[in-house]
């Protein structure tokens, strides 16, 4: 039975293997080229931390040539799970039902359950391994660029977060199970592909916008009234605002700031503006920041949601295949 699924999925496996070889070669070559550039520009230290020298001409040149490429690699890791769901998951059962070949299997000795389980595992595992390998390759490149690459945005930067930790593999599992379930239910490849893509994108967005609810933002206070991001770390700023002298949140900072806007077009110094705002009751800046060390927790919570949904889809798949007209 394993052999049959392997044989049926052979073009898919060849595509995955070929894709991985090409991706690995490209990433390793680009990474080597990038490391050479780092050395040539004396930027090796800038990978670890943001130094003053890292804002120089060499750093800008370096980012100009590499940042977008690394970013694209991260986006690939974010997109591939959807492709797995659409092109491997959705047609897996839909095509059998569409072409009537499920009858071929059902009129032999194997049970429907075994047929389904074998197809599910044999077709799914290589896809998961592919995503995991791609993630590791891209990760090694992203890490090599360090603070000169997308990591400068911290762990919550959208492509960094989605291409990191357990997320890519769990997204793949979610997309794949969604695809096979919808395919077995609709028995139409095109319907399954469309629904899989739609539901996958919608659920990813729905969960991503609630990311701040999974962690507990910490309130950081800053005396710098004018710049909300002064001295901000790698955490994700969820909200900013002002506190009054008693430490209470100012509900309407706009009305406090309004008198400080000059009537004519003149340059107001930061000090003057700060002083004016202080007179009108704005004592401190605050910002609610999702801390860097919460990234792992949020990854796991999000993974739990998608893994739970994947489990539901697997149960749905069992039902959809075993049900008889």
């Amino acid at each position, binding site marked *: *039975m394993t*052999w*049959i699924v392997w*044989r*049926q999925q*052979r*073009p898919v496996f060849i595509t995955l293997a070929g894709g991985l070889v090409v991706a690995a070669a490209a990433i390793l070559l680009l990474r080597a080229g990038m490391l050479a550039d780092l050395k040539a520009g004396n930027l090796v230290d800038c990978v670890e931390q943001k130094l003053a020298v890292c804002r120089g001409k060499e750093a800008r040149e370096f980012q100009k040539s590499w940042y977008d490429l690394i970013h694209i690699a991260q986006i690939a890791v974010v997109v591939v799970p959807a492709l797995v769901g659409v092109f491997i998951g959705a047609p897996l059962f839909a095509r059998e039902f569409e*072409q*009537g*070949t*499920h*009858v*071929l*299997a*059902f*009129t*032999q*000795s*194997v*049970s*429907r359950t075994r047929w389904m389980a074998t197809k599910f595992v044999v077709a799914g595992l290589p896809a998961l391994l592919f995503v995991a390998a791609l993630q590791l390759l891209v990760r090694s490149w992203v890490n090599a660029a360090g603070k000169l690459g997308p990591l400068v945005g911290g762990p919550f930067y959208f492509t960094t977060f989605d291409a990191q930790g357990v997320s890519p593999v769990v997204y793949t599992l979610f997309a794949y199970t969604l695809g096979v379930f919808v395919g077995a239910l609709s028995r139409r490849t095109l319907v399954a592909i469309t629904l899989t893509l739609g539901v996958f994108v919608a659920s990813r967005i729905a969960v991503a916008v609630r990311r701040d609810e999974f962690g507990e933002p910490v309130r950081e206070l800053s005396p710098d009234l004018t710049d909300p991001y002064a001295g901000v770390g790698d955490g994700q700023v969820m909200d900013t605002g002002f506190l009054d002298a008693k430490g209470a949140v100012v509900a309407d900072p706009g009305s406090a700031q309004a008198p400080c806007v000059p009537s004519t077009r003149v340059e107001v110094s930061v000090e003057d503006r700060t002083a004016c705002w202080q007179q009108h009751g704005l004592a401190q800046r605050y910002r609610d920041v999702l801390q860097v060390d919460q990234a792992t927790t949020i990854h796991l919570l999000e993974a739990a949601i998608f893994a739970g949904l994947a489990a539901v889809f697997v149960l749905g798949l069992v039902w959809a295949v*075993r049900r*008889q*007209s």
Partner: protein
Amino acid sequence: MNASPVHASSVAKHFGRVRALDDCSFALPEGSVTALVGPNGAGKSTLLSLIAGLARPTSGSVSVRGTPVRGRMHPDVALLTQKRPLYEQFTVREVMRAGAALNDRWSAARASEVLDLLAGVDRDAKVRTLSAGARTQVAIALALGRLPKLLLLDEPLSDLDPLARDETLRIVMTDVAERGTTVLLSSHLLTDLGDVCDHLLLLDEGRVQVVGDIDGILVDHRVVVGPAEVELETDGVVVDSSHTPRQTTALVRGGSAPSGWDSTHPDLETLVMAYLRASRTRKLARQ
């Protein structure tokens, strides 16, 4: 418990409001070759898929060799479906390997024997490149490789040329002769069936119209011909009658030969045609 190869008791299958099968009861004797006939949409394929366990009856039950069919195929059954589903990308050799992998009991020798019959099928040809006849042969090889005791064939002869039809029937009949396989085959090709079938199961609108041994059925029916102006009086059941300006021809079931009418026993084709015509007449009358 009835241990006959197929035993159906009051089987019904409804698809929503459509009654594909209704109250079908019959049993097939061991080693019989039964022709399953009926007009399009009579429920032939539905009946075969119920026996194979591909679908579940709405009510009633089907049992194969004494075991009720529940959601999966009995190990002694093989089914050739109308569409001959095969993995298009596989070579014939790979299809046979799949057959071996999918079955607990599998005879590669038997399957190979079937493939070698007639002109022989190229083992390295991809399934999608095969002609309709070769494709059917591969599907039959896959079915017979299971060494079935009950072989269900849904339109095994459709889209085959006359020569391939004849040869395909010969493959099946060889299996019957050698292994005593019970066969239930649906077909529209009555002339081909006459030579090989010994039993008849005639379905119309989901109901069993006639079932039994063909010789007995033919003896039980009469084709009577008489002048057009005389009313036919018979103690049997008039299945179908047709009129020309000069004479009336009717198929009568049971009873004795009406006096004054020319009476003969029909052949299989005449009998089935009369039932099919009667079915169409009923349908038209309802519209």
